[in-house]
């Protein structure tokens, strides 16, 4: 039983990392309808920005702040410079944009920082002794990841549900024509959506780097799970992204624990089998809405 709880907590922690990255994917999807699978490489780029900032002697938190601001600007710039040019042309074009972004950030990072992995954490916030309740313990790294994920999610929730700006962001995602009609600067909202999504991705990147290290390929498999989480939860649903991320994290961890290690990476197979099963029952994801006809 303790082993089960232990693995459950571990799954929730790694799942919350997928959830955060998935949140970023959902924010961008809701903004311009782009399924941005370059999200991982953009997060990786932000991780290197943080690394660079810190290697100039900057402290951890100031470097994080700088990274988030630069990610915000980077995402907004990408929307304004690139995504906007091909919007509404065809789904294929937006797919190609995501592919292009993937290559741009991958190549840019390789060019600037080189192919070698960097040492990046775990930082003091993420290291130290485990905290135990009863027989169940949570390591400092997982605790840190969990805390950051929860804070990020709560802040985003407050932004979207309790502010006028958040209301306008949601409105733009729902109906652009109506948004223009009430005087919302739609273009700026779309840029903001990309900026927020990219900044949230950067947070996921920094979390990932604590357990997986900093490398150009660090985010390859994280983004795979985040995309799966977003699809599982329903691509247009932030709540779905969080729930989807947690489910995948937990299933993957438990599958890894209770299957013989000789089978190798069966945990991945089980996680994706669960996704396929859910999507067979709910094609729009757990919280996704079927497209409703407007009267």
């Amino acid at each position: 039983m303790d082993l089960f709880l232990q693995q459950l907590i571990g799954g929730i922690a790694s799942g919350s990392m997928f959830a955060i990255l998935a949140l970023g994917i959902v924010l961008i999807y809701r903004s311009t309808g782009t399924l941005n699978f370059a999200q991982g490489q953009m997060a990786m780029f932000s991780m290197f920005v943080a690394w660079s900032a810190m290697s100039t002697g900057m402290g951890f938190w100031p470097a994080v702040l700088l990274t988030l601001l630069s990610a915000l600007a980077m995402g907004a710039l990408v929307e304004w410079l690139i995504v906007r040019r091909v919007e509404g042309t065809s789904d294929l074009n937006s797919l190609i944009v995501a592919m292009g972004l993937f290559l741009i950030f991958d190549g840019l990072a390789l060019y600037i920082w080189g192919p070698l992995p960097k040492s990046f954490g775990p930082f003091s916030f993420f290291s130290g002794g485990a905290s135990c309740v009863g027989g169940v313990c949570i390591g400092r790294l997982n605790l840190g990841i969990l805390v950051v994920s929860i804070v990020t999610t709560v802040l985003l929730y407050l932004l979207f549900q309790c502010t006028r700006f958040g209301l306008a962001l949601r409105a733009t995602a729902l109906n652009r024509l109506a948004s223009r009609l009430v005087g919302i600067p739609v273009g700026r909202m779309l840029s903001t959506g990309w900026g927020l999504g990219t900044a949230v991705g950067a947070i996921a990147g920094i979390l990932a780097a604590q357990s997986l290290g900093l490398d150009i390929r660090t985010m390859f498999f994280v983004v795979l799970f985040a995309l799966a989480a977003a699809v599982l939860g329903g691509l247009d649903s932030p709540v779905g992204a969080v729930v989807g991320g947690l489910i995948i994290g937990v299933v993957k961890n438990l599958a890894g624990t209770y299957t013989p290690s000789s089978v190798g990476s069966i945990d991945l197979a089980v996680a994706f089998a669960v996704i396929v099963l859910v999507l067979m029952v709910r094609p729009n994801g757990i919280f996704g809405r079927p497209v409703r006809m407007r009267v």
Partner: protein
Amino acid sequence: MLTLKDIHVSYGQAPALHGVSLEVPEGHIVTLLGANGSGKSTTIHAVAGLLPIQSGSIDFEGREIAGLSTEAIVRLGICATLEGRQLFGEMTVLENLRLGAYTQGEGKGFDEQLERVLTYFPALSERLELSSYLLSGGEQQMLAIGRALMARPRLLLMDEPSLGLAPLLAQEMFAGIMSLSKAEGISVLLAEQAADLAVGISGYGYVLEVGKVVLGDTARNLLDNEEVRSAYLGH
């Protein structure tokens, strides 16, 4: 208050308006008549800044507004309700009204304006927390108008507000628009296809035919005009 001079608009290569000129005097209700595809909606969209204008000028209270963004036009005091109502269906009635006031901020003025708008549409005040797609057609139209009013416009553009409403409801709707225009001093440009009621509350009307104004006259004269009556007023 609003003067259109020789407006030209195309959708891609296809011209939709070739030389529309019309005028909405301060405090008046003006109706745009015309058959399907004559360009009524296009005219409304053009004034609201939702479509680019090839040539011509749109003067609003002495300012050229052709080429301005919809946001800027809303801030100057022109709001539109469109065909299909364009509500935020998944949002509540109150959220829709809050969004209507987006350009106004949400201070004390918001509550005042909300109260005022709800006095015109009391049915909405009991449904503030309801998702707007659950409203009846008439209530949705009220919400669309109420949302536009939240921005404190001085000119209201309305595209077929009676579309899909039962005759009795349509009658109520137009009576509401008239009293609202009087009480708040709001000018209205109204596009309607079956337009007896619309012309009935208007002071002036224009007839559009394939993207051109072919007739502009007082509502009384339009009502007396045999050709107009048989073509647009359903008699």
